[in-house]
């Protein structure tokens, strides 16, 4: 039977923010719908309303012309609306089977039977009796999907499902979603990734600041048109002037970088040698898990490796810790904003104070110079257009993009000679990505250098002057970026060789 889901005039107001402003949308089964928007556009609020987690201030939801009262998640379930949240709603310490059993009404034996049927039908391979915390992100998502499928849903909502998946897992997910769609399940796909919308979905609704600003067929859209709708203004195309000149000084030089670890989850690094010139951006490409983590930690001084030589501004710094390296004007932006770069429970100005220098005088005789830190933080917030001027705000309330701007601001305000960043735009929306890219280019324009470790090839091609690929802990030869194509990178990242 065909399913028809209609949202009519939904509004939800939080103190100081209109999350959903009179949203009306219509969905019909047999199609995959995209709900597109930047972080904070109101997508998540809307799906939380659809799944009964929160209730709207105004408006109604109709399923096949029946007015639904969704006052708890139970109501959504009863009405066959399934939901896969961005942050998994699983119980880590329970086994897969227990996770699926928790809201089942049948006995264990027939449940197991039904689960096995689903596993077989969609080619999922998951051990039902291991605890969920042992699963990969992709497998966890499959458990969530199975949980929905067990209730034979009419509507399946996926909230930013690919943010934690590898490319392989993403492809598998898309295949499954298309299957579900063919079987008559209405799929609503929430994302801020434009390419996914174009490759997977049939129709796309764009949200901005709580409002639906456009509904259209994806075949009539392009990445640029969707991006402009999403951000609400024309995004400036960024192009970088490649500036390689042979006679510039080498500011940073790494020799004989070796790293050996007993931990099976770490990658060994084998004899890496490279250098960075003044005003240059060196890109390091690779599929994640090929040694980027270890490389970043060694470059930042979190891990000290023996017999490695790191020369920075004509000084040997291989034995220095991150703080000492910062004093020599290096700066670092790690991949994980929440747990490595900032402390989410601390206020903005406290996070700023974490990166303190002798010269910045944040601390005097063991006391915190709050006034000075706050002034400094305000300057960062305005210079790097972070979307708040309240330095007392806890960092966890900043969106990913704003947090990244704050972190970059904190690192850059000291005018470092070399910035090393690892996936600086991971999980951000186009507006924020654009801003970060502009900032990184500006650094090079000011004759400062950057090392960009990234898994995003497009980003690397856009920003780097020279590119190398890391594969299983080994570095390829370093190539000028005008000689590099996405295809070449792809081959090297997969472990192949070119020429």
């Amino acid at each position, binding site marked *: 039977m065909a399913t028809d889901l209609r949202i009519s005039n939904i509004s939800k107001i939080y103190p100081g923010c209109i999350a959903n402003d009179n949203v009306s949308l219509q969905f019909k089964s047999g199609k995959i719908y995209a709900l597109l928007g930047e972080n904070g556009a109101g997508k998540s609020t809307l799906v939380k309303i659809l799944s009964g987690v929160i209730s709207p201030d105004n408006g109604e939801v109709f399923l096949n012309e029946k007015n639904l009262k969704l006052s708890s998640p139970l109501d959504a379930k009863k009405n066959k609306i399934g939901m896969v949240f961005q942050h998994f709603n699983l119980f880590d310490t*329970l086994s897969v089977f*227990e996770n699926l059993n928790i809201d089942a009404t049948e006995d264990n034996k027939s449940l197991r039977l039904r689960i096995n049927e689903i596993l077989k039908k969609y080619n999922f391979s998951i051990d039902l009796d291991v605890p969920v915390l042992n699963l990969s992100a992709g497998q966890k998502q499959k458990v969530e999907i199975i949980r929905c499928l067990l209730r034979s849903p009419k509507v399946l909502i996926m909230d930013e499902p690919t943010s934690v998946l590898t490319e392989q897992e993403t492809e598998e997910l898309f295949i499954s979603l298309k299957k579900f769609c063919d079987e008559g399940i209405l799929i609503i796909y929430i994302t801020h990734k434009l390419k996914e919308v174009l490759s997977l979905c049939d129709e796309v609704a764009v949200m901005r600041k709580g409002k639906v600003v456009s509904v259209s067929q994806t075949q009539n859209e392009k990445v640029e048109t969707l991006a402009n709708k999403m951000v609400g203004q024309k995004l400036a195309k960024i192009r970088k002037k490649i500036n390689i000149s042979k006679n510039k000084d080498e500011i940073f030089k790494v020799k004989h970088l070796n790293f050996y670890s007993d931990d099976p989850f770490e990658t060994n690094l084998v004899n890496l040698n490279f250098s960075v010139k003044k005003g240059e951006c060196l890109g390091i490409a690779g599929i994640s898990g090929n040694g980027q983590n270890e490389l970043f930690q060694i470059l930042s001084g979190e891990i000290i490796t023996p017999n490695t030589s790191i020369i920075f501004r004509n000084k040997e710094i291989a034995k220095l810790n991150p703080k000492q390296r910062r004093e020599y004007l290096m700066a670092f932006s790690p991949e994980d904003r929440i747990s490595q770069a900032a402390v989410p429970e601390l206020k903005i100005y406290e996070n700023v104070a974490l990166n303190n220098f002798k010269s910045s005088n944040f601390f005097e005789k063991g006391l915190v110079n709050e006034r000075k830190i706050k002034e400094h933080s305000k300057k960062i917030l305005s210079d790097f257009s972070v979307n708040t001027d309240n330095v007392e705000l806890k960092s966890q309330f900043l969106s990913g993009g704003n947090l990244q701007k704050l972190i970059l601001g904190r690192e850059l305000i000291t005018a470092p000679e070399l910035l090393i960043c690892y996936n600086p735009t991971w999980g951000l929306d186009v507006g924020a990505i654009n801003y970060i890219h502009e900032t990184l280019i500006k650094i090079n324009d000011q004759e400062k250098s950057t090392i960009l470790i990234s898994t995003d090839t497009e980003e690397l091609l856009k920003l780097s002057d020279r590119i190398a690929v890391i594969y299983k802990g080994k570095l390829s030869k370093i190539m000028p970026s005008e000689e590099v194509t996405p295809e070449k990178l792809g081959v090297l990242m997969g472990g192949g060789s070119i020429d």
Partner: protein
Amino acid sequence: MSLDISFIGILIGSIMASSVPLILAASGELITERSGVLNLGVEGMMIIGAISGFALMVITDNLFIAIVGSMLSGIIISLIFGFLTQSLLTNHVATGLALTIFGIGLSAMLGKNFVGIPGKEFPILFSSLKESIPFFGPILFGHSIVLYFAFALPFLTNYFLKKTKLGLVVRAVGDSPVSASNQGINVILVRYCCILYGGAMCGLAGAYLSLIYTPQWIENMTAGRGWIALALVVFATWSPIKVLIGALIFGGITILQLHMQAIGFRIPVQFLSALPYLMTIIVLVVISRDSRKIKLNTPTSLGRIFYREK
């Protein structure tokens, strides 16, 4: 002193009796903690159970009413904790500490008129078998019904948590209340129930002290057993069977060191008194070394305040 076999039997029997309040209180608290609630009021709930059990026994002269009443009083006082932490979202640790202080004070006030009143003999089961079978007699027979219940409880708790749907729900709530709520589970209700159950078991543990173990009312008679029970739960890594083992070790060494003191071992008394605490911790830490199992048994959300998004 001759350590004949029947003496050892009696010794083991008395060790079992001394560990009963620990087993009861710890098993109750274990369920509470498994649902993600950290109730540090165990000592307070126990002492309230002790005085209300004893007072009811004196007033009604009915042991059944006394036992049931002690559990009810445990429930009522844990309801205060539940209301504060679950409905008013107060901090678990601070509220639990306050509950203990409150319980000790209240019990002292209520108990003023009951000091010095002799207790009533509590019926023991199979008393004839206790005498007639050497060694095993005093171990297996001649105990109160509460003791048998206490020794069955860890196994029942284990079965409940591992095999029943409700146990699964309790574990799920303790693991991730947000996920549970999104799955349509009423997290607050589940936690209330677990808190009240914990209160009932602590009340019973207190009544065991004042009605059976040392049948009289003495101010502050729980003497820190509630804290030991709390520690047992943690060091047993939230496993009911290990709680039982820990309680027996603690009770065992407590009794043994008393005997050692009586015999006059040349070991400082202070060290002997510290021995039960030391040994219990060492043994439980050693048997719970598997870090994977610890991770699976630990209620991830323990002590964190949960509220539903509106």
